[in-house]
């Protein structure tokens, strides 16, 4: 099955809320071999001026890849996950992600380009934090390109 060219311009609205916990920040920080105390010690993070533990610079990938899953698992997309290669990634932080944040991601398919028998797909996740009234504050923008390899690629 080939990639559906009509994916370009498609958007997937914010679905589930991702609750950022202290333990997930610590676990993710250890997994990327981070040792900065701002990820582990609440007192230190507060002394630096943050409300709670600070997430590492690539933490938003958890939320972005959950948003991407909506596209990859969309039966109309034609994407075979086992043939997906990550081509590039960017994080732009409007403010740091901290423990206690309630995040949602809105996914946009910005580009679909045929490459050989496969395709390069560029997606953008706009990540927002929800406050007590569910009002949105812009937290991060992530962009990602994946190469879906065609047969024999």
């Amino acid at each position, binding site marked *: 099955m080939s990639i559906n060219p009509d994916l370009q311009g498609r958007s997937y609205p914010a679905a589930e809320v991702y609750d950022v916990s202290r333990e*997930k920040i610590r*676990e*993710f920080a*250890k*997994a*990327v*071999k*981070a*040792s*900065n105390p*701002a*990820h582990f010690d609440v007192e230190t993070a507060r002394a*630096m001026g*943050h409300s709670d533990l*600070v*997430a*590492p*610079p*690539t933490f938003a*990938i*958890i939320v972005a*890849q*959950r948003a991407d899953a909506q596209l990859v698992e969309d039966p109309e997309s034609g994407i075979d*996950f*086992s*043939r*997906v*290669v*990550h*081509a*590039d*990634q*960017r*994080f*732009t*932080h409007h403010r*740091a992600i901290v423990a206690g944040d309630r995040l949602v991601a809105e996914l946009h398919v910005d580009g679909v380009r045929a490459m050989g028998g496969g395709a390069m797909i560029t997606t953008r996740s706009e990540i927002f934090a929800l406050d007590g009234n569910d009002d949105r504050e812009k937290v991060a923008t992530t962009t990602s390109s994946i190469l879906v390899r065609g047969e024999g690629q």
Partner: protein
Amino acid sequence: MSPKFEELTVGQEIGTRSIEVTRQDLVKYAGASGDFNPIHWNEAFATSVELPGVIAHGMFTMGSAVQLVSDWAGDPAAVVDYQTRFTKPVLVADTTGTDEAGAVIDVTGVVGALDAEAGTVRIDLTVVAAGQKVLMKSQAVVKVS
């Protein structure tokens, strides 16, 4: 001590770091990130999809390489933008049960650009494994005082 803008010059090296990677590290990263693609932990699956073996998550490499910058900046929240291209996979050998690393990733950071108006510095990372550059255009923008 966090870096001071006026003390920085383009071309200046901020430091180097050597990251040892094992198969267990990839399993940990899979759990922490939620990316359970078996090419990152199952040899038979990886070779069945024409890879030379188990490879590290690109996001593991990207995420661990930026630690040099986070620590140099002092506050990880100072990293306001970070991007990379993934050019070569990092092949991680199975060294389970030994003290050996399955791969070593070497990271070097250099001041690539200074923006006085924004108060930011761009750190360009060179990230090498098995003699090959595995990330390209790996750039972190850091807010400095």
